């Protein structure tokens, strides 16, 4: 690999780190955006099947060109700016919605290659930073700005109500996500996402080849459930989609947006869904690790696990009716926050000497 890159490195000279980072970013973002586009297709097909319909099947074979057609349609539509809108912020809103949901992918490792000297595996991530999990939490907390700015700048009461709901909901559920992640990092003893995945590898069950039983999801089962439900609420997806609430406030913060500006909100929502799913598979389901010891680890496990969570998103959407707003807040603050705080204490005590010996599988 290094020998292969040598000529390029000498060609670009001092600009090489910048160029190499850009190459890595493009290599990550292009497949990601394709996934986002085909997530919409997947959603329509899955929900169609669940409701005994066919879903999109006209554009291309099996309707496979539908996302491309949708994107082209939105691209050529006019972006209308309402006359009463605050123009600069109105345009900034969708940009601030999509930027964090893509920036968060900088620290997500999708695979790790065995190190040539047998040391720590080399993660395939744009940036392998030590505070990876903190970075993700910080980026998640910025995501709310796109919605809040869009809602205010539109100068419409429906958009503003949507933005209010969104920001309150996202800020509330970040708390329980944060506590769930604290449990994970207590067990792994690291904030680095690659180390968190690697720390799930050894365990009592892994000796018998049943690696999937030693992943974080089993010892942290309540946190795993809380994390995923909070993740659904954090991305404002059904049944927590009161932000859009088309029956009450028409479409929330994006009611006045059209064309590509609207598409950016849409892309941000789906990119966030994929992000939450990828985080769930990294933190609780062992990322790229194979569930059984006789199969090799690899990127496809990561993709499969992420796809499973994405399917859960759609399954939940097709199954449950929308929550009432006060009950969303009640679930977040009065149910999840106490549960997660209690579990942080339980896990912290469990990790300390007299108890940590009881279950040798995790962390140690």
């Amino acid at each position, binding site marked *: 690999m290094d020998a292969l890159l040598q000529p390029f490195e000498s060609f670009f000279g001092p600009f090489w780190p910048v160029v190499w980072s850009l190459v890595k970013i493009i290599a990550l973002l292009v497949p990601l955006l394709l996934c986002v586009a085909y997530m919409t297709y997947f959603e329509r097909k899955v929900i169609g099947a669940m409701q005994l319909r066919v879903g999109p099947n006209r554009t291309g074979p099996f309707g496979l060109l539908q996302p491309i057609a949708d994107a082209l349609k939105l691209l050529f539509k006019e972006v209308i700016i309402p006359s009463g809108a*605050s123009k600069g*912020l109105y345009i900034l809103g969708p940009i601030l919605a999509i930027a964090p949901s893509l920036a968060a992918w900088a620290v997500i490792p999708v695979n790790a290659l065995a190190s040539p000297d047998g040391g720590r595996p080399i993660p395939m991530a744009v940036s392998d*930073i*030590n*505070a990876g999990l*903190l*970075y993700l*939490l*910080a980026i*998640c*907390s*910025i995501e*709310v*700005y796109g919605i*809040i*700015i869009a809602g*205010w700048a539109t100068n419409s009461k429906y958009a*503003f109500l949507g933005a*209010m709901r969104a*920001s309150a909901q996202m*800020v509330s559920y*970040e708390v329980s996500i944060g506590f769930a992640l604290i449990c994970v990092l207590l067990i792994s003893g690291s*904030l680095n996402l690659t180390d968190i995945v690697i720390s799930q590898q050894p365990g009592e069950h892994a000796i018998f080849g049943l690696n999937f039983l030693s992943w974080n999801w089993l010892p942290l089962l309540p946190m795993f459930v809380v994390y995923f439900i909070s993740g659904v609420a954090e991305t404002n997806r059904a049944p927590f989609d009161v932000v859009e609430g088309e029956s009450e406030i028409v479409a929330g913060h994006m009611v006045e947006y059209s064309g590509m500006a609207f598409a950016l909100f849409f892309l941000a929502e789906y990119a966030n869904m994929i992000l939450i799913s990828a985080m769930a598979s990294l933190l609780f389901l062992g990322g790229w690790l194979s569930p059984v010891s006789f199969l090799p680890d690899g990127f496809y496990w990561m993709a499969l696990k992420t796809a499973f969570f994405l399917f859960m998103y759609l399954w939940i959407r097709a199954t449950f009716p929308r929550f009432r707003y*006060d*009950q969303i807040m*009640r679930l977040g603050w009065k149910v999840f926050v106490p549960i997660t705080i209690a579990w942080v204490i339980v896990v912290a005590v469990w990790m300390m000497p007299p108890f940590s010996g009881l279950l040798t599988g995790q962390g140690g």
Partner: protein
Amino acid sequence: MEFTSFVFYFFAAVLIFSGLRVVTARNPVHAALFLVLAFFSAGGIWLLLSAEFLAITLVMVYIGAVMVLFLFVVMMLDIDFARLREGFWQYLPVGAFVGVLLLIEMGLVLSRGFGGKEMPPTTAMVTEQAGAIPCKSNICELGSVLYTDYVYPFELAALVLLVAMIAAVSLTLRRRRTSKYISPEEQIAARPADRMELVKMASEKEAPASAAQDGAGADKEAGQ
């Protein structure tokens, strides 16, 4: 110029510009958003000092939580901009005095910290030099200092925050009689038998001719 110094000057320029705009912007929402930008640039500068934990916490706490609530309030208030600027010259001397005082104080702190004598090494630094805790990251170092040398101030600060939190909740907690709140426990505990009574009635026989006409009339009424 090194790349890092270029990054520093960039962040510093954005920070100063956005800081100025916070006080000069006419619209309070714009001012709050410039404050967000200022926090973000400050976080960038802290990252350059390899204080990644503080930088990310700044973004998480101030941008992610505090400023969101701030924006909430500012956006919902109906602010009269003309009245806000009214007493500018009247308050200027006081403001200038406080500003100069802050400048002097910060200057004193910085000159002591950087130009003065060295800070004494903390326990964590000593143990690390002895090879006890191999800390690679800023977070690890910060944690080992917080839980050894500064454990009492740290716990005290946590307690103060907890008290403040409870105080804020208890100050704003009130039972509103007009609220249409329904306890979810009651809703879940409700059984069909509590709300509904099924009455068994014997079916009635229809009378042959005239009653059929009456029945049709009744249907019509029901339809209307």
